C-alpha cells in the first residue's frame, strides 16, 4: 500500500521549480519518529506520523544551532502533529512549522523560531522530498 500526499508548507520553496529527490523507502523510516536525510548540502528531518504521512522539515534546531530536529519526540498538541526539539524542548507544529512553545528560550542570533518545511510525496513506498 502506498500513501501519496503533499502539504502546503509555510516557508517552502515555490512549487514551480521543485526538484524532487528520491530519499528512502517509507519502511526505512521509523513510525512516530524522525530520521535525518542529506539532500546535497541540505540536511532535512523526515517524520513518519502514525498514519504514515511523512513530513519534512529543516534538520537545524533554531534554538541550539545543532542539526538534531529529527531526534525530537513526535506527538500531538490539541490534535496537531508536533515535534519537540531534543535540546531545549521547543514544540513545533508539523503542519505549519511554527513554534508552539518556545519553552522560555530565544532562537540563536539570525534564526527564526520556526521550521522550514519541504514538500514530501510518498510514491509506491518511496519517499520523495523536494528542495530547490
Amino acid at each position, binding site marked *: 500500500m502506498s500513501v501519496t500526499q503533499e502539504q502546503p508548507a509555510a516557508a517552502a520553496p515555490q512549487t514551480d521549480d521543485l526538484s524532487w529527490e528520491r*530519499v528512502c523507502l517509507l519502511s526505512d523510516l521509523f*513510525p512516530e*519518529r524522525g530520521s535525518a536525510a*542529506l539532500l546535497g548540502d541540505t*540536511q532535512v528531518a523526515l517524520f513518519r506520523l502514525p498514519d504514515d504521512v511523512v513530513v519534512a522539515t529543516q534538520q537545524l534546531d533554531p534554538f541550539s544551532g*545543532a542539526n538534531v530536529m529529527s531526534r525530537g519526540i513526535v*506527538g*500531538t498538541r490539541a*490534535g496537531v502533529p508536533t515535534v519537540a526539539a531534543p535540546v531545549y524542548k521547543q514544540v513545533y507544529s508539523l503542519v505549519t512549522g511554527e513554534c508552539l512553545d518556545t519553552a522560555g528560550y530565544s532562537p540563536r542570533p539570525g534564526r527564526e523560531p520556526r521550521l522550514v518545511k519541504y514538500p514530501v510525496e510518498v510514491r509506491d513506498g518511496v519517499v520523495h522530498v523536494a528542495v530547490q
Partner: protein
Amino acid sequence: MDSSGESRRLVVVGGGMVAQRFVEALRARDTAGTWQVDVFAEEPRKPYDRVALTKYFEVRDPEELTLGDPALWDDPAVTLHRDCAVTAIDREARTVTDRLGRVHPYDELVLATGSNAAMPPIPGNDLPGVFVYRTIDDVAALRGWVEQKREAGTTAGGFVKPVRGAVIGGGLLGLEAAGALKALGAEATVIEFGTHLMGVQIDLGGGHALKRLINDKGIGVRPQTATSAMKPHKRTGHVGHLEFGDGGRLDVDVVVVATGVRPRDELARTAGLEIGERGGAVVDLACRTSDEHVHAIGEVACIEGRCIGLVAPGYAMAEVVVDRLLGGEATFPGADTATKLKLSGVDVASFGDAHGRTEDAMEVVWADPAAGVYKKLVLSDDARTLLGGVFVGDAAPYASLRPMLGSQLPGDPGAFLLPEGGGGAPALELPDDANVCSCNNVSAGTIRAAVTEHECTDVAGVKACTRAGTTCGSCLPLVKKITNTELQRAGITVSNALCEHFELTRAQLFDAVRVADLHTFTEIIGRFGRVPEGADGPGRGCDICKPVVASILASLGNGHILAGEQATLQDTNDHMLANLQKDGTYSVVPRMPGGEVTPEGLIVVGEVARDFGLYTKITGGQRIDMFGARVEQLPDIWRRLVDAGFESGHAYGKSLRTVKSCVGSTWCRYGVQDSVGMAVDLELRYRGLRSPHKLKLGVSGCARECAEARGKDVGVIATEKGWNVYVGGNGGFTPRHAQLLAEDLTDEELVRTIDRFLMYYVRTADRLQRTATWIQDVEGGLEGVRKVILEDSLGIAADLDEAMARHVANYEDEWRAVLDDPEKLRRFSSFVNAPRTADPTLAYVPERGQRRPATDEERASGVIIAGPKLEVRA
C-alpha cells in the same frame, strides 16, 4: 560614617536570630536609607539558626545553619562586628563601648542580647564533662567530648564501651539535647524535676504519652527526680555519676544541663535600665525600655511582665521596633507560644492555653495509649471557641488548628482529634487574620493576597513573596492548602494533570498501568488518555507524557526500551542510549560500579576515546565520560566497550546513575566497613532501574564521609555496628543533605531498606521529582516513608520487595542488546540515505590537548582545525 549627614546611627547589641531578623526587616523596609546599622555579636560567626542546633550533629557545617540571605551582611548600610561584645552603655553620651575599648555613638540602641543557658547551683556543675546546650561552640564541645570518651572506651579488641549520657531538664531543649546524645551514639537519660516532660507546654496526660515515645527512641526518662550533686570519677576527675534527692544514683560520662535560660540583662542592669522581677529589660508594648532611645527585643526583653524563651515572639518584637524606627505605631501583638518539638520520630506540639487554665475551660481528649497518642483541645465553656491544644504522637491536626486559636470551630471539636481518615474533620476556613507562619508572622490573609494581588501561582511563589514557611517549614502544608484554595477560587486551575493527554499524575498513572496490567502506549492512552481541547481524539501523546510512560513501562519490566512501540516514547538520550550535547553529538559513559575500574579497563577506555577522537573527562560520579560521539559512531564505540566487559552506565536515563564510594576498610586506615564492596553490590543491584528522575547513591566507609553520601538520594555510611542509611540528598540547583532513615543495619537489612525506598519512590513520585521533594510531598513525610519501609504501615512491603526482585532478575545490558539486534542498530544512522556519513557541519578546535566544539566566532574566523571526520582512526 557617611558624607550625606542624613543617616542616623543605630546600634544593635547581640548577633542572634532576633538581631538577624531585626536587621533584615529594617533593611527591607528602610528604603530611604535612614539608618546606618552597627551590629555587635559576641560569637565569631554570622547569626545562625539556634532552633536547628541539633542539626549541627548531622551536618557538622555551621554554614548549614546560616539564617536568611548572607548578602544582608554585605549591605553597605550594615556593619557586623563579630567576636566583638559590647561591654558598656553610656546612656548620657549615647555611646556603647566594645570589648576592644572602642566607643561607638548611637541615635537609637537595640538590645538583642538573648539568654544564657541557666546553670542550676548543683554541686559539681563545673566538672569536666558537664555541658550546656546553647551555642554552636557548646554543641561542638559536647560532640568532641563524646567522641573522646568513646575512643577512650574502645578496647584493642574493638569492644566499645557505650558512652553514658544524662540530660538534666526535660523541657524542649533537654529533649533535643537527649536526641543529640543519641545521634552521637551515646546513651541518654533525661532527668526531670517536675511531674512530666515538657511541663511548660503539655499536660500530664500528654507527658505520659510523650514519655513512652521518648522511651521508644531508646532514651531513659526519670521524672520527679531532683539532682542533688554531680560527682567526679575517682581516677579521671571527670564527671562520673549523678546523685539524686531520692538517694538514687546514675553513672555518667557526660552531662548536659538544660534547665532553662536566663535573660542576658547585665548591660541593661549596669546601664541603669529598669529590670523585671525575674530579670530582663522591662519594655512597653512598643518594645521601648525605660530609656526612650533604648529598645529591647527577644529573650532579653521583659514584655507584659515576663521574658519569653521562644523565637517567634522575638521576631514579632523585632518587627515592632523596625516599624517604630521608621515612624510607625506598631505594638507587640502578644506572644504566640505555640511550640512543636523537632525530634525525629517524636511528634509533640502545643499551642494556646495547653493546660486549660482559662476559667470554665473545657477539654476534649482523645488518647490511644497503645499507639502512644494523646491529643487534647481546650475550648471555651460553650465548647466552640478554641483556646489551646496539646498533641503527642500525632501532631497532624496542629498545623491547621493552631491558626484557629481564638476562633470558633465548625462542627464537633472531637472530630478534629480522630485519626486521619477516621472521622473526617470539617474543612477549616481560616480567618484572614489567623497567623499561619508564626516564624515570619504571616497571616492567612497575606497568603491569600499573594495569590490574588501579587499573582503568585504556586507555593514556591507564595513562599518567596511572603516568607511564609521559609524558617521552620512546619506551616508549609497549610500554606499549600490556602494557596491552592485561593488559586481555585481565582479560577486558576491547580492541575496535577501530567499534560493535555493525561488527567492523571505520574503516580496515579503508574498505579493505573500496573493494576490494569497494560504494556503499550497505545493501550495506555486508549484507556487512560483524555481528549484535549480542540482535538477529536486522545492524540498520540507528547514530549511530556511519552517519556513518563516510557519510564513507567521500563520500571514495570517491559523488555528493552527500544522494543516495539516503546522506541517511539524515548527522549533522544534514551533513544540513542547516550547523552545529547550542545552540538548534536553524544557522550558515552560505561558503567564503573562503585567507581572501581581495572587498569585494563582504563586502557580500553583510553584507547576507545583516542581512536574516536573523544574528549575525556572524569565525572562527579566516579566514572569516565567521553564526549563528541556521533550517532553513527555509537555502535562501534560500544562494540569495543562491551567486548572489553563494560556495560551501559545509564548516564542518559532517568535511572540509577552511580553509587559513589570511598575506598573503605580494605585500604583505608580509618574505614570500618567495606564501602567499595557494598557500593559495587548496590550498583549492580539497581543498575538499569528507571525512576521519575535520576538517582544517585553513595557509600562511605566511616563517619568521615569521604564519598559525600549525604549529598545523594540514598547515602550509606558505615558504623562500627553496620550501616546508617540516609535518604533525600542531592546536589544541583537546590542542594540537600540526606536525612537519616535507619541506623546500624546489617548488609541484608540495608539492601532491603534501599530496595523498598527506591521502589516506593519509583511508584509514587511525580514526574521529574527527586527524592528530596518527594519525601516532602509524600504522605507523612520522612516519618511516613520510614513507616512504610520499616514498619510496613501500608502493607505493601512484600510487593515492593517482589518488584525489586523482578527488576534484579530481569536486568540486561541495554547496549549489548542493541548490538545483538540489527533492527535496533538501524536507528544509529546519521542519515537515512547516507547512514555512515558524518554531520558535515560539526567543527572542533583543540584545547588543552583535547578537542571541543568550535564557537560561532571560531567558525566565522575559520580557525577550525578539524571537521567531524579527520580525527577518526577506528
